[in-house]
């Protein structure tokens, strides 16, 4: 698993609290490596979270989001067992999608 993702979704009555930790280098393109070479920009640009197929959050990110990004938010109308899916796409065209069930 080259890019693990930790998705935690817990329901509390009608509200689901979602916490996602994503593995991604989020390189700004401004950092130099040990040899003094600029490390090319490589960061998540688009991210969507769906619940049972409907979008519950979407975002556009720039390179200023931290490495191994963290995202937390809450939505209504979820229940234990419902399927949460997080999909991201980065500036190099790579994409990843992970699913987790609401607890």
């Amino acid at each position, binding site marked *: *698993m080259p890019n*693990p993702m*930790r998705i935690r979704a817990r329901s509390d009555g009608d509200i689901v609290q979602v*916490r996602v*930790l994503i*593995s991604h280098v989020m390189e700004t393109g401004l950092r130099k490596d040990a040899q003094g070479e600029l490390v090319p920009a490589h960061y998540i640009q688009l991210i969507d979270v769906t619940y049972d197929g409907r979008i519950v959050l979407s975002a556009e990110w720039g390179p200023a989001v931290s490495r191994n990004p*963290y995202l937390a938010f809450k939505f209504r109308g979820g229940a234990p067992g419902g399927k949460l899916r997080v999909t991201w796409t980065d500036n190099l065209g790579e994409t990843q999608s992970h699913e987790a069930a609401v607890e």
Partner: protein
Amino acid sequence: MCRHLPSWACAALALGLAVSAAGDDDRAVREIQKYRQMLQEANPAELSELRGEDLWHSPRGRNHVGLERCDLGLGPGRLEGAYARLPRYFPDTGKVQDAESRLVTCMLTLQGMTLEEATRDWHSPNSDMEALVTYVAGLSRGYAIDVPLSHPEEARMAAAGEELFFRRSGPLDFGCSSCHSMPGRRIRLQEVPDFPDPASARGAMTQWPAYRVSQGAVWTMQRRLIDCVRQMRWPQPDYLSDAVIALEIYLQRQANGGVMQAPGMRR
């Protein structure tokens, strides 16, 4: 210049550290604690744990097998609570080993890697070794540190570690104890554990391996100790050397009874 200062402060100043007594930077410390609390909601080390689990099961090396038969002291493949009982003596190698060196043993004997292959990235951020140690340590969450020194080699290594801890040496006549053997010290707003005090030792050792905020990466205890020794202007000990493991078993022994919470978060 240094005659009027206690020797520890003099040496610390020589190293350019801003060492402050408890009470000086309380407000700043509170804000930093708030910063750390916000980060603790999701410790980036959790990603290392996931990667480590994946690596544990990945067929690698010449023998193209995973590490499932690796014995970390509780028997082949028994991981729960194993990290809390390390370092310890292993009859098959005849040595006292910590989690990291034991993983290397398994990579060599089970997976058929060379020593170079198994250890080449130990100091790189997000290395395979960091992920594996974090995974293994995470499986000791909730277990009490238990280093009984029941084998004579364990006792010998712990005694050597204690001696190293208190020894002052190098161009600054500095030792671990120069910073780590009195209560209430801070360096750059991070509390400095007082290892001769078991309560303080427990507070520290139960957090390692730890996500180091200043590095943006998880460090193992092995790596942390090697870097500490380097910062004292001592010659840097070799990776996996007896000197580091001796220090480690001494420190873990001091922390006996502490409940593992690793991976933790530190400056």
